[in-house]
């Protein structure tokens, strides 16, 4: 297991190198002078020169890259031009709503997606199976921000059951936090629950067709014992990897949902920085999200190897 873990960690190094290079190159793709774009048309030549020196943009490109990479490795992601605080500080201040939203969404996605997939597989071809799959298909085809807008109109505006938008800190009032996050978490989680339901169904159908399942029935085991004790355990292994990847995908989905519901999270920070052309923040946030995505995929791979020992020898 240690060898497998070491191999996977070593395999990450070239991937993170490509990620860091891509993030650096992206910010230098901006047509024209990025400093003029940041400071606006009214900026004086002195201000532009000062900013270029501050961001090391007056150095050769390769030197800029080396300097930037060195700072990133030491945890220095630069300073926000608009907010005048370190990028890392700006991200940490906004991490709580994004993490809570993602956790709630994944709880919903797993809590609904897996049972739906199991019911669909065990009642293959029935009305329940077809109904669940139609809903799942509609779910994966629907834009989550459109679902959010419709929910805002119905639940918040028409019936007034939940607040329209915004966020209250967990330390201030946890109940209010929950009320503000229910709708956004449902929007984010519903789409992913559809994906998990489809995946669970497909894997369960494969597992239920195996010989040992037929043997279990032949031995006289109850249907519940065969499905939940034998089939579901084996079906969960690939499904868990999908759940792990779903968690990572939700970090991207949270960007749109935070915009719809005005939640002051990391995703909203990214969109605001794009509008303000706050390039250090864009660079820092994108790098952190990609890094978190890579780390989560690593944890999913390790969990998979732990649950299915055959993987270690691949």
């Amino acid at each position: 297991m240690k060898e497998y873990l070491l191999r996977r960690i070593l395999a990450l190094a070239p991937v993170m190198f490509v990620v860091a290079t891509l993030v650096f190159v992206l910010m230098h793709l901006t047509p024209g002078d990025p400093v003029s774009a940041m400071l606006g048309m009214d900026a004086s030549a002195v201000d532009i020169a000062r900013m270029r020196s501050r961001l090391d943009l007056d150095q050769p490109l390769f030197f800029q890259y080396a300097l930037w990479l060195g700072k990133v490795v030491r945890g220095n992601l630069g300073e926000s031009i608009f907010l005048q605080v370190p990028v890392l500080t700006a991200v940490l201040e906004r991490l709580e709503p994004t993490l809570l939203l993602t956790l709630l969404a994944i709880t919903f996605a797993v809590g609904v997606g897996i049972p739906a997939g199991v019911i669909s597989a065990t009642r293959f071809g029935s009305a329940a199976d077809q109904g669940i799959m139609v809903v799942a298909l509609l779910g994966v085809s629907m834009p989550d921000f459109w679902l959010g807008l419709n929910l805002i109109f119905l639940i918040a505006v028409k019936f007034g059951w939940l607040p329209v938008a915004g966020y209250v800190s967990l330390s201030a009032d946890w109940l209010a936090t929950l009320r503000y996050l229910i709708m956004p978490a449902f929007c984010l989680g519903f789409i992913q629950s559809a994906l998990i339901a489809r995946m669970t169904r497909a894997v369960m159908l494969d597992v239920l067709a195996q010989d040992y399942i037929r043997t279990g029935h032949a031995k006289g085991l109850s249907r519940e014992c065969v499905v939940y004790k034998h089939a579901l355990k084996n079906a969960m292994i690939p499904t868990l990897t999908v759940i792990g990847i779903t968690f990572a995908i939700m970090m991207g989905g949270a960007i749109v949902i935070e915009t719809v519901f005005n939640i002051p999270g990391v995703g909203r920070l990214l969109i605001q920085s794009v509008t303000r052309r706050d390039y250090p923040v864009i660079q820092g946030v994108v790098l952190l999200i990609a890094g978190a995505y890579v780390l989560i995929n690593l944890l999913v791979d390790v969990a998979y190897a732990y649950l299915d020992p055959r993987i270690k020898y691949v």
Partner: protein
Amino acid sequence: MANTAAAEGAAQEAKRRSVWAQTLRMLVRRRIVAVGIGLVVGGFLVAVLAPLLASHNPNELTIADRLRPPSRANLFGTDGFGRDVYSRVVYGARLSILVGAMSVAVASIGGGIAGLIAGFYPRLDGVLMRIMDGIMAFPNIVLAIALMASLGPSVINVIFSLGFVYMPRVARVVRSGVLVIRESLYVEAARALGARDHRILRLDILPNCLSPIIVQATFVFAYAVLGEAALSFLGVGVPPYISSWGNILSEGRQFITQAPWITIFPGVAIMLTVLGLNVVGDGLRDACDPRMRYLYGRMSKSTKA
């Protein structure tokens, strides 16, 4: 040896033609796939016939008629500037289909070339696949937003960004196919006869990789339609003056309490288009799966008997 290889090549060609015919038959036999094909074709027709189907100029401002509910004059109502929502949705189909199709082209060409080279030349495989892994390390929407932040809002940049983001998916699928096909007897025979690498790639390997590329292309099309809508909704996609489903949703957001119809109809249009593409993609994937083809063949024979 050369005769055996030529015979095998001819047999492969005949088999490929009958496989395509069988794939098409399998597709249209399934009712839900036929519905999906109908939705996709419908979307294309709306996009092509937009000037004929639209009842008004999508950019015509009529402030006196702003925020009117759906009626005979304005099927989907009007927005905050008095523009006809139905006409904007119809013209929005044009943009979505264009962005989807061109993003597929960028992803397929870029990913296809990368996959072919990675699969055929082992020395380049490691480097190319690590680059693809690096691109896939970003959540798709995050990378697309970062690209749009650098390049600026325009239709071409949206197409490039979405195509770039989905390129690694195609590259991986093509590479897997090439790794298997390059060990075939007819490829070995072609090499022995002195055929150059580009000829082998073009005539022997690429045609046999087409079916997984086509399956991926339908899913990439669906993701690109959703991606363009999301980018435009966030304000980092196509410019606001272009009729795009995402732009209509973004503008409709501020009037959600007074005029919910502005957001309902473009969302339904997105959902139906993506639904059609997903269903067709599922159908193609099943039709190209040898196990499903074997089952279908057995079912057809038992029906005829």
